[in-house]
């Protein structure tokens, strides 16, 4: 077997058992193609990281270099000092985004999972219609609903409140769809057994179902974090002290080319949270997505 030793852990480059109709030549071509793809995908992100570590005098070298000669963390500390003159301390922006992301994700996972469980395992009138509407809503995006949403928010008095972002996020349909598809695979026998023992549905849900669908709620967490963390400009929020981190950071980044290093630091900060969450939950996500197929 071909193998490459890296730091005493073997990383195999070729599949262990080769299906005989797959030629090695095509394998090589695939490898090269993937290599080019990987560079195309990864280089901008890697470059963001190295750019954020460059001191000011290295930013405008011609021809442009990839790695900094004297890496520095000054760009990151600058993030805090630049905003120190504004009305709102930088930490408040961080708090806003963490709050929105944390509470929004928590509530979304709980409420959407409960509904998904009901759609997957309960029988009631209108169930198919409801699920059909959910699938239909996957087919159009937020732009269509943004104006009436604004009116609804105004009517509900939620303008300028964090809730105006959190509550719609709870109703995100991708999460409900994935969770319901995943839950459908749960064997009914376990649920029946618990019901015979006298468990209420609520207890059944918390003690049995949720542990079993861990990959799915990990997935919901990642997708929810991804969309909430990156929110910058929101049409519902006006007061400066309620604005999220994405807004503050985009203000910094758009301040001009002299700030390219700080701009890159902004990009790195904003992308690190979703990416790290993904790394932690990756296998769970793949497991969830395997049941995500649209069967009709």
């Amino acid at each position, binding site marked *: 077997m071909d193998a490459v030793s890296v730091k005493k852990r073997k*990383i*195999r*480059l070729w599949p262990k058992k080769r*299906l005989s*109709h*797959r030629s090695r030549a095509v*394998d090589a071509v*695939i490898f090269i193609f993937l290599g080019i793809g*990987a560079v*195309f*995908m990864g280089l*901008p992100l890697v470059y*963001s990281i190295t*750019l954020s570590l460059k001191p000011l005098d290295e930013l405008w070298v011609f021809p*442009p270099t990839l790695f900094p000669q004297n890496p520095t963390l000054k760009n990151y500390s600058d993030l805090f000092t630049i905003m120190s003159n504004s009305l709102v301390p930088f930490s408040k922006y961080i708090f806003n985004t963490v709050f929105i992301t944390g509470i929004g994700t928590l509530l979304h996972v709980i*409420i959407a999972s409960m*509904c998904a*469980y*009901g759609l997957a*395992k*309960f*029988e*009631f009138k209108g169930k198919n219609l409801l699920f059909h*509407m959910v699938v239909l809503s*996957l*087919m*159009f*995006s*937020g*732009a*269509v*609903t*943004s*104006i*009436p949403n604004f009116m*609804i928010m105004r009517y509900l008095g939620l303008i300028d409140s964090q809730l105006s972002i959190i509550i*719609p996020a709870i*109703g995100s*349909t991708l999460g*409900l769809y994935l969770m319901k598809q995943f839950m459908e695979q749960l064997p*009914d026998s376990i*649920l029946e057994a618990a*019901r015979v023992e006298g468990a209420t*549905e609520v207890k059944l849900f918390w003690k049995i179902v949720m542990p079993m669908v861990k990959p799915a709620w990990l997935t919901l967490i990642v997708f929810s974090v*991804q969309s909430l963390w990156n929110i910058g400009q929101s*049409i519902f929020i006006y007061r400066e002290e309620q604005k999220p981190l*994405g807004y503050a950071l985009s203000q910094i*980044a758009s301040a001009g080319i002299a700030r390219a290093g700080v701009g*890159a630091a902004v*990009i790195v900060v*904003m*992308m690190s949270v*979703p990416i790290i969450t993904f790394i932690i939950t*990756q*296998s769970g*996500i*793949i497991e969830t*997505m395997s049941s995500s*197929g*649209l069967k009709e």
Partner: protein
Amino acid sequence: MVKASKKNLCIFIAPYMIIFTLFTVLPVVISIGLSFTNFNMIQLPKFVGFANYTRLFVNDDLFFTALQNTLFFAVITGPVGYILCFTFAWFINQLPVKLRAFLTLLFYAPSIAGNSFMIWLLAFSEDSYGFVNAFLLNYGIIDKPVLWLTDVKYMKTVAVIVILWQSLGASFLAFIAGLQNVDRTLYEAGMMDGIRNRWQELYYITLPVMRPQLMFGAVMSITGSFGIGSVLTGLFGNPSTDYAAYTIVHHLEDYGGTRFMMGYASAIATILFLIMIGSNKLIQRLLRRIGT
């Protein structure tokens, strides 16, 4: 399956469905309704029948530019993005597990990395410091920096590159997952039945088995590609030169968010809604025939 009691329905289904109805269903209904009125947020809506739609199709040149651009981006980045998702997922699936996990992360990262597409601004920067310009200047291919972001000839190409870079999202993950779950014994049975190379294996075995994932991936791709807006604003500003990067979403934001002509904007939104649903349904019908 259990017959749900009223209490259980309230606890489990109601909270989500209330939010869903309020923020997803109701807005669409309101949008369609408002599209038949003139409404400026201050006075009450005034019913005008089809006037908004007539004006859109007869009097609004910018709408047609927006429609053309949207269709261009959707048709190019939608299917191409979809095929790329599948191709990369299929290639990655041929590799062993650890390498697969790393490459999945690498290919998926651009789509979740928020505003990271801004880094492409540096690459395509219009002075001689932009990487593409610097590279071409260095090798003497051009002798002046090219205005990638404002010259109409190049804007669409740059846009397509950046959008494709960011498009390996949920569809990509669904394909990776679907491919991993194809039963290996099917491949072995196929080998005995005479399948000679991996392309036949793909066409006769893999694709039909993966049809549900393919349909899901198509929905995500189409919805995303018609809703392109903020990436283009980030790259080219709004309005872009000659409106070359102006999409229906921009048009909608202009009339709704800037001019407060809510009735007209709702008409635009309704048309976008119909386009999205229409294309999705059409593609679903096409995909249903895979393997039959």
